[in-house]
């Protein structure tokens, strides 16, 4: 009865046939859970590794209804997986553990788990998991209904006043209308509310849309923000308050995660060399809410910027290898890629990060450079982190531009610049990830690999730091380089990128070897048409001046880099995307 889990949802006899993906490194539990779930008449797919699970999920965006995962797994923290799934696929995730400490449970909830089960798990607990799926569907239905507005048949049922409310601006009217609709929907045909059938219609948070969102949030002031206010500011007729509310929630989660990560991670996102998950064409990605872009294959490349909303537009994925289709314009293209850039430390680069004040996104764009944390792939989805800090430490971190710190041992700097092109605005994070850091960014890896294959060569130690002046591309260099940058960080604010830093970076870059290949994520084609600075880096090919690598670019060449562009909302998206990984 267990198929591969790729069947289409069954519409009959829900919850029977619920497609569950179980992830647990304990083989005994995996077997038991499988049996228990089968007994509940669910369709079960088991998986012993988190990465594998992500691969499966990415391969078939609509192949599963719910994910159950253990908290402790060897290859990836269960909470991370949870986030990834929530952001990329927006599936309900249930956490499990033999450890029931309140703090853990709380963490689970904070990361978005819809439930937390304690082992040993009983049958009756598993029988009820369908409620989470159902709940989500209902919410989606509401969103859809709002979205579709007039066309929705509910509208007609509700009367003509609904029609007039075509512009569901989330105003009171809409709310009441919606309430009415909700009440009605309860009596709706199962079809309409059938969880499995409504999955598709969701609000697609495109780059543009997200940008508007971010702008609105910043305008209002993050502390005072509320869905209604945001909605009003955004002025998007078909968007509903609910859409904004749930988006806001995710955004907040994302930001708080970034905060934490930046505090705890000191490594750049290491682009781990992950074997790219199945390679499909871009279709694998469900852009629908997240931009998973990582190019055309479902593997999220090395950088997974999971941008939730196809922010990918600016990402010129294509740039990468020229074959990343779909990614291009993620914005436009529906490449369902998962841009997941695991940026563990968004902004606070810990040691070894260059601090840039990122105001790239200046507040609104939330440019967050993905910090790739070499130790864990964190996904960042948008980051509105106003500052990208790259602090250089003596660590050999190659570029920390805000991308996590790669724990680079001095000698080996592999700067992986293969960043996924995702968010154009990943400005700071040139994917300089050390190869070693591999472990951390899962997502980034695949992309990285692919990218690398195209034109990236492993950076040799000397080049490790792109930005470092040639003195020694060792950490010390970094330190030197970065110090001034940090100092001037504050002044850069307006630029979003510390110009000083940029200058330094530029300098550093110029000195980089050709080997240093930084595959900047070319999220944005419009970013710099030429990376002069980068050009020095030869060998680096980006199709588009690395949007992601914005900082450096900007640094080098003001003209090249269109500063305005930096603040261009679309660019933000790129970054945001990364944030909203």
């Amino acid at each position, binding site marked *: 009865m267990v198929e591969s889990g790729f069947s289409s949802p069954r519409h009959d006899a829900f919850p029977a046939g619920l497609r569950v993906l179980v992830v647990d490194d304990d083989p005994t539990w995996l*077997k038991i859970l499988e049996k228990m779930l089968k007994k509940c008449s669910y369709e079960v797919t088991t998986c012993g590794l988190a990465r594998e699970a992500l691969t499966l999920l990415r391969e078939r965006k609509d192949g599963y209804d719910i994910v159950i995962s253990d908290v402790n797994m060897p290859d990836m923290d269960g909470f991370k997986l949870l986030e990834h799934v929530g952001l990329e696929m927006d599936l309900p995730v249930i956490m499990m553990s033999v450890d029931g400490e309140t703090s853990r449970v709380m963490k689970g909830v904070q990361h978005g788990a819809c439930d937390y089960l304690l082992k040993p798990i009983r049958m009756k607990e598993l029988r009820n998991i369908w409620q989470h799926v159902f709940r989500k569907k209902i919410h989606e239905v509401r969103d859809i209904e709002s979205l579709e507005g007039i066309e929705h048949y509910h509208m007609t049922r509700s009367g003509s006043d609904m029609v007039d409310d075509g512009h569901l601006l989330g105003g009171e009217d809409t709310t009441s209308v919606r309430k009415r609709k909700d009440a009605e929907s309860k009596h709706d045909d199962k079809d309409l509310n059938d969880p499995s059938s409504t999955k598709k219609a969701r609000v697609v948070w495109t780059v543009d849309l997200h940008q508007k969102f971010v702008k609105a949030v910043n305008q209002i002031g993050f502390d005072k923000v509320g869905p209604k206010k945001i909605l009003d500011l955004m002025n998007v007729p078909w968007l509903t308050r609910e859409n904004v509310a749930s988006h806001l929630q995710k955004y907040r989660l994302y930001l708080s995660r970034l905060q934490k990560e930046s505090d705890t991670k000191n490594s750049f996102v290491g682009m781990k060399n992950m074997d790219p998950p199945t390679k499909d064409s871009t279709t694998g990605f469900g852009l629908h809410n997240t931009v998973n872009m990582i190019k055309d294959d479902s593997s999220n490349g090395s950088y997974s910027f999971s941008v939730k909303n196809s922010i990918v537009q600016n990402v010129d994925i294509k740039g990468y290898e020229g074959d990343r289709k779909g990614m291009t314009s993620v914005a436009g293209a529906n490449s369902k890629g998962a841009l997941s850039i695991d940026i563990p430390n968004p902004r606070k680069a810990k040691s070894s990060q260059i601090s840039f004040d990122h105001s790239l996104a200046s507040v609104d764009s939330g440019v967050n450079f993905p910090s790739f944390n070499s130790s864990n792939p964190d996904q960042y989805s948008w980051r509105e982190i106003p500052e990208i800090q790259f602090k250089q430490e003596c660590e050999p971190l190659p570029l920390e531009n805000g991308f996590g710190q790669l724990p680079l041992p001095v000698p080996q700097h592999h700067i992986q610049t293969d960043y996924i092109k995702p968010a154009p605005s990943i400005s700071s994070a040139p994917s300089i990830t050390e190869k070693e850091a591999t472990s951390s960014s899962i997502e980034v890896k695949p992309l990285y690999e692919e990218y690398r294959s195209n034109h990236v060569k492993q950076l040799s130690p000397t080049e490790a730091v792109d930005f470092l002046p040639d003195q020694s591309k060792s950490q010390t260099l970094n330190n030197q380089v970065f110090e001034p940058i940090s100092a001037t960080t504050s002044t850069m604010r307006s630029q979003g990128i510390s110009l000083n830093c940029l200058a330094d970076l530029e300098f550093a870059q110029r000195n980089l070897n050709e080997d240093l290949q930084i595959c900047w994520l070319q999220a944005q084609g419009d970013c710099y048409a030429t990376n002069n600075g980068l050009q020095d880096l030869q060998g680096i090919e980006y199709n588009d001046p690395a949007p992601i690598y914005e900082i450096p670019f900007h640094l080098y060449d003001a003209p090249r880099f269109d500063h305005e562009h930096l603040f261009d909302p679309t660019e933000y998206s790129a970054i945001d995307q990364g944030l909203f990984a």
Partner: protein
Amino acid sequence: MDVVQLQRQLVDYKASLYNEAILDEQFTQLQELQDENNPDFVVEVVSLFFEDSERLLNELTKALEQQNIDFKRVDAHVHQLKGSSSSIGAQRVQKVCIAFRNCCEEQNVQGCLICLQQVKNEYSLVKTKLETMFKLEQQILAAGGSIPV
């Protein structure tokens, strides 16, 4: 011994395992999961448990033999062992794991070594008991009887 006697023996034996807290409710659940589709379900699961536990015990032994003990690592293994023992209801093993984790937290080497020994003992005990039980079951089946629930 005839079937009826064997069956009685089995029932008593199982009861003792529960009484001595060697096994708990979870084991019953496992048995309930077994059906015609998976007639050997319990044996399979228990075998997985044995394999996994032995691996973990080896890891633990190695880790605690190091000059500089990596307590985090030890703790991680214990946690895993705790998890898998909970899967089949090996209650006593699970209990020792809890104490073991405390020792790890305190970075108490002696305590850890003692716990390791204890957990090994408990593990051996549950393994022996389960193997005996399975043998009894086999005997019953071989004699044409059915396993009493």
